[in-house]
């Protein structure tokens, strides 16, 4: 399908309807063993993230250690899905994680603004992949998108996808800068059309970051695309999902929009840093029956 046909297919979004639908997801009661399953599933879907100017190699090593050893006392815990770092930290992260199953994801393409020459952004992507990144989180040029230059956005995604080679490509729409749900839908359609393996809400550097409304619109884009072409695209809400309650609501929404098939870390991720500890606290609460204190969990 051509880009113009894809865009012509982008449906208008009823934002009141979206809000109401989201409100319904928040009323589901997930308790006991289902809750335990949901908590563990959410844990296995986390991209443990550190994206700060002050990151050091030691901080990344610590994060990798945490990714592998989430909690010493709990049996049957999954590991997180990936560790998400800046390209400069990919080497260290790969060394630490080697073949334990936790992937290394790198934000590339001049994250978080994306304001740079496409050639430089592609070079950065290739560098990250060469250093061992198995997943690339790219940002789209929001300025170009808002100016209506959809072809440019499509082309840059295609180019970065090519630069990724074997690595999985997650396309960050930065929905906090897209203003309307209609734009979110349009950007999702473009990203899927251009070959994204995952679409992702936000960089975490812009407020608002992930919201359930935005995520629902993106999930519906994935669903519509799947029904039309059979191609399966993953989803990653990132930023602001800080506790178990919210995470479980996202899982409910995922299950009720895309079905069981998507309930796997292969197709759904949470970009988060503090969520993991809260999930662990809730898992300990579920198994011990006693409310927990963050004093007994790692600091970051």
């Amino acid at each position, binding site marked *: 399908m051509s880009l113009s046909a894809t865009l012509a297919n982008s449906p208008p979004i009823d934002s009141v309807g979206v809000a109401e639908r989201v409100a319904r997801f928040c009323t589901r009661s997930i308790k006991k063993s289902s809750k335990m399953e949901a908590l563990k599933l959410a844990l296995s879907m986390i991209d443990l993230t550190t994206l700060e100017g002050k990151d050091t190699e030691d901080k990344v090593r610590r994060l990798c250690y945490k990714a592998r050893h989430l909690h010493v006392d709990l049996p049957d815990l999954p590991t997180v899905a990936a560790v998400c770092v800046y390209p400069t930290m990919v080497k260290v992260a790969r060394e630490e994680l080697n073949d334990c199953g936790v992937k290394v994801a790198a934000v590339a393409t001049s994250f978080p603004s994306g304001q740079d020459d496409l050639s430089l952004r592609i070079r950065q992507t290739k560098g990250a992949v060469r250093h061992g990144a198995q997943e690339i989180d790219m940002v789209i040029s929001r300025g170009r998108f808002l100016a209506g230059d959809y072809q440019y956005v499509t082309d840059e995604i295609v180019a970065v996808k090519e630069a990724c080679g074997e690595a999985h490509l997650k396309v960050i729409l930065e929905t906090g800068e897209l203003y309307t749900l209609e734009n979110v839908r349009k950007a999702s359609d473009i990203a899927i059309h251009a070959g994204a393996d995952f679409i992702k809400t936000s960089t975490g550097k812009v407020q608002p970051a992930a919201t359930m409304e935005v995520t629902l619109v993106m999930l519906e884009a994935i669903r519509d695309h799947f029904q039309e072409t059979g191609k399966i695209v993953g989803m990653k809400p990132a930023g602001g999902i800080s506790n178990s309650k919210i995470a479980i609501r996202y899982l409910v929404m995922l299950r009720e929009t895309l079905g069981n098939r998507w309930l796997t870390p292969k197709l759904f991720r949470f970009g988060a840093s503090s969520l993991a500890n809260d999930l662990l606290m809730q898992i300990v609460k579920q198994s011990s*029956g006693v409310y927990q204190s963050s004093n007994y969990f790692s600091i970051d």
Partner: protein
Amino acid sequence: MMSRNSPDKRLSVAKTYKLYIGGKFPRTESGRTFEARSHSGDLLANLCRASRKDLREAVVVARKAFPGWAKRSGYNRGQILYRIAEMMEGRIDQLANEISSQGVPPKKALKEVETSIERFVYYAGWADKYAQIHSSVNPVSTAHLNFSVPEPMGIVGIIPPNEPSLLGLATLLAPALAGGNVAISLVSETRPLAPATFAEILHSSDVPAGVVNILTGFRKELLPDFSTHMDVNAILAADLSTKERKLTEENSALNLKRVIHLPSKAISATDNPGLSPILSLQETKTTWHPIGT
């Protein structure tokens, strides 16, 4: 209150008594209520019957509020405690009415409110003084200045006696606050009206949100959750039964909560209870500071 019913048959507007969590007045998440009745058995009000999830919320907001409250100067905490006393003064009649509506003779009820105010004034005075009295410079044989200072423990679960309800709360709460702790109190089950109204006084007294949280409900239901919660650092209680006390002590071993139990005599005395309730909720920090020989 019912005394507002005037002869021209004005229908008085009854207050909805709610919880006080994080500077807000929510209803219990459980939607449950229990009745407060007068001495003669008339229904006075329906109160929120707090659940363990309300307690959980209260602990979360209290934990957030703790660093800020502990960091304030003792002088400032004293000012705020005194402010609580000022605001109570303006509502003496309401508080006394609420206490007497539940079976305490009016004069005794008034006395209870007055003594409660006195408690806050008393501990307001201590707030910027206990630390220097309880601090020490310790003699050591190395080239160090070695000193010890008291620091607040954190979140204190306050379980006042059922009676006297307001005075019990004031006597346990004031020293906890003066010492920089934050508090969650499960107030009197049998006379909850005045303690619930007391939350409104806290709300208008410059007490930062989350520093004091007031729950109404059943002790039998919530005491196990107070005592097992890993993020509650101490329990200050009065007048627990032997069974309740045993349960609290045993559960508190989980995270080595400090359990302090006061006899009911200490609560109702007109004399102020002294410095020890403040100090009982402090940890001592000792510092070795290197100095030249």
